């Protein structure tokens, strides 16, 4: 059964130096607040995992939390490059970042295999590309019935998965809807899990398209309103596209980035303070 507690407690208890950590979200419901808390608590040597590392991974990488990244597409969607990610890979700043690179289909297959308790998953993928040369978790497999050549990938089983959802209840159940990406699989494949939610309610009302994760497959549920910002939570907030665009300039420069992290993340004690710090309380976007 999950605990309903503060994000500070949940990260302190569940995210350890050296862990494999997946903060998942496919544009929608990205757990930014949780990523900031990981930076704030100074975690180091993390193996970060995500299909689509974007701004919050740029921040984690730039802040020096990660030494390894497993991913399939790392960019600022609709804007351009992830500058901190590039600086780490191209120049080793703040230190070298080892990468394990997949395709989306491969990552999705890996999470699904992890969630299903299988050691590997099978797909029609990667064949003829240069990815298998560089990524050990991809290998050929033959259909035992037809002899057809397919591809196997190892299951993903993060030490901790962290997602953001619309609602939790007092028993620690989680309800989420809209575009849900691989979030369910991320939680079910992980050894531990943290879910930040927009609100904690007494009882869930049914919502079309909603998925409910029962309390007994979730580690901790933490109420963090707006905790996906600048990503969004359908029916609670809209994507702050201006913030994503502004990130490009901040992240391009090491000094500007460091000042931003020091001031807004390390210089605040939680997400509510962060929001005030970046001016969200007064409607500005950065």
């Amino acid at each position, binding site marked *: 059964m999950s605990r309903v507690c503060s994000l500070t407690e949940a990260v302190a208890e569940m995210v350890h130096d050296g862990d494999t950590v997946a903060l998942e979200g*496919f*544009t*929608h419901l990205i757990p930014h607040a949780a990523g900031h808390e990981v930076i704030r608590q100074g975690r180091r040597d993390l193996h970060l995992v995500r*299909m*689509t590392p974007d701004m919050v991974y740029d921040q984690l990488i730039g802040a020096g939390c990660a030494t390894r990244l497993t*991913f*399939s*597409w*790392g*960019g600022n*969607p*609709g804007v351009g*490059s*992830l500058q901190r*990610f*590039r600086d780490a*890979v*191209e120049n080793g700043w703040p230190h070298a970042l080892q990468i394990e*690179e*997949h*395709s*989306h*289909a491969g990552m*999705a*297959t890996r*999470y*699904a295999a992890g969630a299903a308790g299988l050691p590997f998953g099978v*797909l*029609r*993928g*990667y*064949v*003829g*590309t*240069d*990815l298998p040369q*560089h990524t050990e978790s991809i290998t050929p497999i033959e259909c035992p019935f037809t002899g*057809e*050549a397919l591809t196997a990938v190892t299951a993903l089983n993060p030490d901790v998965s962290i997602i953001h959802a619309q609602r939790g209840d007092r028993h620690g159940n989680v309800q989420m809807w*809209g*575009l*849900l*990406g*691989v979030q*369910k*699989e991320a939680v079910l494949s992980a050894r531990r899990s943290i879910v930040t939610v927009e609100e904690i309610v007494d009882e869930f009302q049914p919502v079309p*398209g909603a998925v409910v994760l029962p309390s007994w497959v979730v580690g901790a549920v933490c109420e963090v309103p707006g905790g996906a910002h600048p990503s*969004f939570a*359908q029916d609670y907030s*809209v*994507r702050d*596209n201006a913030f*994503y665009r502004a990130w490009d300039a901040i992240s391009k420069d090491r000094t500007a980035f460091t000042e931003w992290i020091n001031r807004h993340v390390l210089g605040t004690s939680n997400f509510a303070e962060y929001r005030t710090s970046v001016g969200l309380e007064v409607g500005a976007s950065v």
Partner: protein
Amino acid sequence: MSDSYTTDELMIINAARQLGALAADGKPVCFVGIGLPSTAANLARRLYNPPPVLVYESGCIGSKPTRLPLSIGDGELGETSDSVVSVPEIFAYWLQAGRVDIGFLGGAQLDRYGNINSTVIGDYNKPATRLPGAGGAPEIAASAGAVMIIMRQSKRAFVERCDFRSSVGFGDGPGHRERLGLRGGGPQWVITDLGVMAPSPDTCELQMVALHPGVTREQAVAATGWPLTFADAVPTTEVLTETELDALRQLQAA
């Protein structure tokens, strides 16, 4: 007719025309990425009947956005879809199973056999430029019934051989897709700012099959990193109409 338009508009409208023709031919299902592909597919939805059916890798099936999404997971996409499924499902049950007629791709480099690099410029372990990575492209390129590529044509981007093969077009040439067991048809149209390329039926090499109004063969050759050939007939693409441009501009302003 109009002669005041951007090269983006030129590419988007030519891509939308092709999608409209494919939908009319019973191939409406289009797996689109954000940016020019999404804009072209949404434009085609407004211009043609039957319209293309839009599938996004975020799990949206049959999206009918009223404004252009900035990201693949824009709320507008999910809320206007016939169905929203998980990301594992969209790749396994929909793309991999062969239900997508047209995959729509871009990239940093495209080579003469239609292979795409969206991973690194330079050496993989010491990249000159680290690009975002392959994302959904490898399996779109493998499994979509046919692939349409939109890219601005230049010697730097249209190369003899990609620095990294992120997605397979015709691999090393004729018969290679078959040897690899790829089920989709591979790249059939490359829409550029200069014209349209298609694979030569004999060699699988991309050649110019159409040029945009006012573009010369010399310009196309100069913007291509391999010895560019031309199809037997190289028509000029239709001039953009006011209807097309108005529809596109309304879409982008919405």
